[in-house]
C-alpha cells in the first residue's frame, strides 16, 4: 500500500503527533515498508473466519458500585506537570 505524505500527516494529527520536516521522508518510508509488510495478510482467505480479540476466553468482569479505594489526593497529584487547588491545571479549552 502506497503511503503518501498526506496520509502520514492525517494519521499524525489523529495521534496528536507532530512530524518535523527532517524526519518526514524516513518516517514515510518506514511506515510504508511496515504497512507493505502487512499487506501479505490479504493473501489469506478469511471470508468465514471470525476475528479473535482475546486469545484466552475472556468475560467482562463487573463489581459492585462501591468505592473501595482510598488514595490521598496529594499523592495522586504528585506527578502532575501543573496543578492548582487540588486540580490538574491545563490551558484554556473553551473560548
Amino acid at each position: 500500500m502506497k503511503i503518501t505524505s498526506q496520509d502520514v500527516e492525517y494519521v499524525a494529527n489523529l495521534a496528536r503527533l507532530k512530524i518535523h520536516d527532517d524526519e518526514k521522508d524516513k518516517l514515510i518510508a518506514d511506515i510504508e515498508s511496515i504497512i507493505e509488510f502487512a499487506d501479505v495478510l490479504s493473501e489469506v482467505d478469511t471470508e468465514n473466519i471470525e476475528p479473535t480479540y482475546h486469545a484466552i476466553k475472556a468475560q467482562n468482569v463487573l463489581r459492585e458500585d462501591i468505592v473501595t479505594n482510598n488514595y490521598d489526593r496529594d499523592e495522586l497529584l504528585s506527578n502532575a506537570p501543573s496543578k492548582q487547588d487540588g486540580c490538574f491545571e491545563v490551558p484554556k479549552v473553551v473560548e
Partner: protein
Amino acid sequence: MNYYDLTAHEIHELLVKKEVTSVEVTNSVIERAEKTEPYIESYLERTFECAVNTARKVDEKIAKGEDISPLEGVPAALKDNLCTKGVKTTCASKMLENFVPCYDAFVVKKIKEQNSPVLGKLNMDEFAMGSSTETSYFKTTKNPYDINKVPGGSSGGCAAAVCAGSAVYALGSDTGGSIRQPASFCGVVGLKPTYGLVSRFGCVAFASSLDQIGPITRDVTDCANVLNSIVAHDELDSTSLDIPKVDYTKALTGDIRGMKIGIAADYIQDGINEDVKKAFLSAAETFKALGAQVGEYTMKAAKYALPAYYIISGAEASSNLARFDGIRYGYRSKKYEDLTELYKNTRSEGFGAEVKRRILVGTYALSAGYYDAYYKKAQKIRTVIINDFNEQFEKFDFIITPTTLSTAFSIGEKIENPLEMYLNDLCTVSVNIAGLPAISIPCGFDSGGMPIGLHIIGKALSEETILRAAYAFEQNTRFNKKRAIVKNKEGREI
C-alpha cells in the same frame, strides 16, 4: 564462592543452613553490580539501601528460627515498566523520566511479600517497543558475553543483569518475545506465561491483548519458584484468570519419556544461523535420547504471524499510549499556545522514533477505511494462528523452535532498519498472538561464544509441561551452569 553467581535455590539452601546471611548475599550482588555496571549499564534506578534493609529483615527472621520461602532474601530487580511505589518508573522514556508511581504493580507487591531484596529498576526498550534495548531514551545495555553486542530486548536490562550477576532474578515483560529473546541472547532462562496467568495491573500497557509479565532467571528451578510467587488471581486486572493454584516446582521431575515433541520445519530454513541450527537440531536429539518422540510440523500461518503482530500491537499501542498527553503525569512540553499544541508537542518531544513509528502504524491500521483491511484482518489471522496451534497440540505435547534465528547482533547493526529489527521476533510473536506459554532456555553457544536459546511452546495453561521439558533438557546438558566473563573494550576481564 561468589554468591552473585548462585541461583536463588542455591542461595536459599545456604540461608537455611545459616552458612551465609541475606545481607552478605545482597552485598555480594551489589558489589558485582557496581563492578559490572560501567560496562553493562543494565540499571536505570538503584535501590541498594532499601534492598539491604529487606535483607536484614530476612536475616532477623532466620535468626529467630522462622521458616523462609524460596525467594526470601534473594536479591531481585524489576523491568522499568513495572510500577514501584515511591521509585521512578520510566519505561526508559523521556515521557516518564521523572514519574514516581504512588502504587506497586501486582507482581511488585508479590515480590515484596516474598521479602526479596529489590535492587532497582532495569533498562528496556522505550515502552517495551524493540528487540535490542537500543531504543531506551537513557542508555544502551550491553550483552555481558560481549559488550559490543546487544542483550536483546525489550527486557534487555533484566537478561543482562541476571546474566552478569547483578541480580539473581528479574521480572520482565513479553509482548512479542521481550522476555524470551533477551534471555536467549544472554544465555539465561525466560518464561512468558499463558495470557491472563499473571496480573498486568501496574505494568505500563503496550499491547493489552499480548502483554504478559514473567521471570528471567539463571535456571528452570528458579523460574518455577518465581512463577509460583507471581501467579494469582487479581481483581484489578479484568483479564486475570481465576483458576486453582498450582505448584510449578512439582513439574521438575526430569522425566519426559513418551512425550511427543513437534519441531518446526518452517524455521530451519534460509536465514537461520548455522550454529543456531546445529544447536537446535542437537537439542531435538537430546530430547529423543531422553525418551521423547520427535516429529516435524509446519504451521500454515507461520509467515503471517509477524505482520499480524505489528498491526495488532501497533493498534493497541496507539490506544494505550494515548494517555501520555502531558496533563496528569509525565513530560509536558514548554511550548504550546493551546491544548492541541500541548498534546502534539508533548508527545513529539516525549516519545522516541520507534514509539512514534508504531503509534502511527497502529493509528493508520485503525483509521476509517483501513480498519477492515488491517486491524480486523490481523485479528482474523489471529484466529487462523490459534487454530493452527490447536492442530499441532492435538499431535504433540509441546513444540520447539530456536528462540531466535541468530545470536546477539552488534550494537547499531539493525537500529536504522525497523523491518530487519522486527525479524528478531520471528519465532516468538505467534506465541503472544495465541496467548500461549513459552520458555527460552540456553541450549548452546555459537562459534564466537555467544549464547543460543531453545524455545519450548505449550498449549494454554501448560506451564507444568514446558517446565518439565525445560528442566529435563537443562539437567542433561547443563548449559545453565556457564557464567559470562565480562570483558572491557580491550578484551580484558574486568
